[in-house]
């Protein structure tokens, strides 16, 4: 091997490391250790119970489907309450559609749960789906500007001022819970009912459920939870507070999460 070639190989090797290795190394550095606990385990519905030890506040929600099944029309009330309070536009067509919380049949909410003989209760039951405020959110990982980020209390929030509209988060969300403002939303917000305390969005940004951060700051419950009144259909609270109502519900009921095998650790639980 002549000297030139040897020199070259050195440079080529080094530059390969710089070109390919650096991003991975950076990511490792940034991710740090603790997360790997949840990565290490793989597949299977049992994953949800193996989440890392609770630290700090983690806001979450329990949806009691039995109550929704018994109160037809309650879910629609939740959707209306949410969409009104957040000035979510109604375009009246599927292409431009924006939605934060909506009803879908069981097999769409819980894909991959095969039903050879479908449970009678599930037949005409529809489930409310909303942003899961994952403990390990793929959308936050994907966002190139930190326009979507996880707050200390576990809420996955959006900063509409910063969003560039690349829609990487929409591709990354395995639940289909993000919507994009394909066009100016303002003309499609009902002027009679809109909430003047809450801004609208502009075209070209992504939006989704924010667990009502602004209402929580004022000591209120999320709009959908409030809409349920005292039916107990929805319970909101700190998943890490052993004295909270939500933890008691989780302790005493069998609950499921959407797509737990993906390791996103959703904070929304369902009692079916």
């Amino acid at each position: 091997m002549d000297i030139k070639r040897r020199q070259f190989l050195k440079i080529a090797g080094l530059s390969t490391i710089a070109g390919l290795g650096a991003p991975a190394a950076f990511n490792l550095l940034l991710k740090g250790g603790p997360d790997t606990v949840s990565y290490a385990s793989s597949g299977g519905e049992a994953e949800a119970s193996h989440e890392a030890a609770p630290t700090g506040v983690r806001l979450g929600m329990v949806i009691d489907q039995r109550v929704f099944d018994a109160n037809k029309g309650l879910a629609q009330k939740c959707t209306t309450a949410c969409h009104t309070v957040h000035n979510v536009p109604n375009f009246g067509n599927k292409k431009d559609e924006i939605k934060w919380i909506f009803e879908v049949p069981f097999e769409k909410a819980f894909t991959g749960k095969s039903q050879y003989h479908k449970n009678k209760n599930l037949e005409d039951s529809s489930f409310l789906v909303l942003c899961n405020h994952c403990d390990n959110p793929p959308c936050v990982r994907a966002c190139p500007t930190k326009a979507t980020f996880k707050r200390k209390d576990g809420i996955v929030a959006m900063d509409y001022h910063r969003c560039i509209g690349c829609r990487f988060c929409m591709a990354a969300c395995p639940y289909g819970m993000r919507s994009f403002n394909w066009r100016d939303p303002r003309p499609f917000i009902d002027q009679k009912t809109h909430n003047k305390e809450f801004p609208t969005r502009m075209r070209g940004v992504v939006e989704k459920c924010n667990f009502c951060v602004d209402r929580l700051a004022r000591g209120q419950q999320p709009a959908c939870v409030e809409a349920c009144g005292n039916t107990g259909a929805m319970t909101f609270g700190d998943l890490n507070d052993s004295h909270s109502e939500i933890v008691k519900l989780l302790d005493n009921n069998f609950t499921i999460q959407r797509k737990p095998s993906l390791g996103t650790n959703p904070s929304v639980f369902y009692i079916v």
Partner: protein
Amino acid sequence: MYDGKYIIPGLIVFVALMTFPIWKNMGNAGIVPKPEKPVGVTKCVESAQYMRTSHMKLLDDWRDEALRDGDRTPVEVDGVKYEKSLMNGCLKCHTDKKKFCDECHVYASVKPYCWDCHYVPKETF
């Protein structure tokens, strides 16, 4: 110089056109904006001087604190509490966007996109 007879007059015409607005408005600053302050209120969260030069910075900071850090503790000045919010803070006193915000923004030809999302008091859209 090659083709000087074209280049020099060309340059003169170019410079004249580019500086036309200066010649035309010589000695005239145009109509100086007079933003209308809220009646009966004498204090803001900062001095008038600071607000005039840096209100946009203050709004950015408030936004980041409220939205990103989740810190929505009201700003307290001389015992009066102000919500850290454009719509639910600033605009509670400064109720007339046209006579307050737009007055200077139009003059300075800046187009902040605040109003794409945030409501103006009494606005219909």
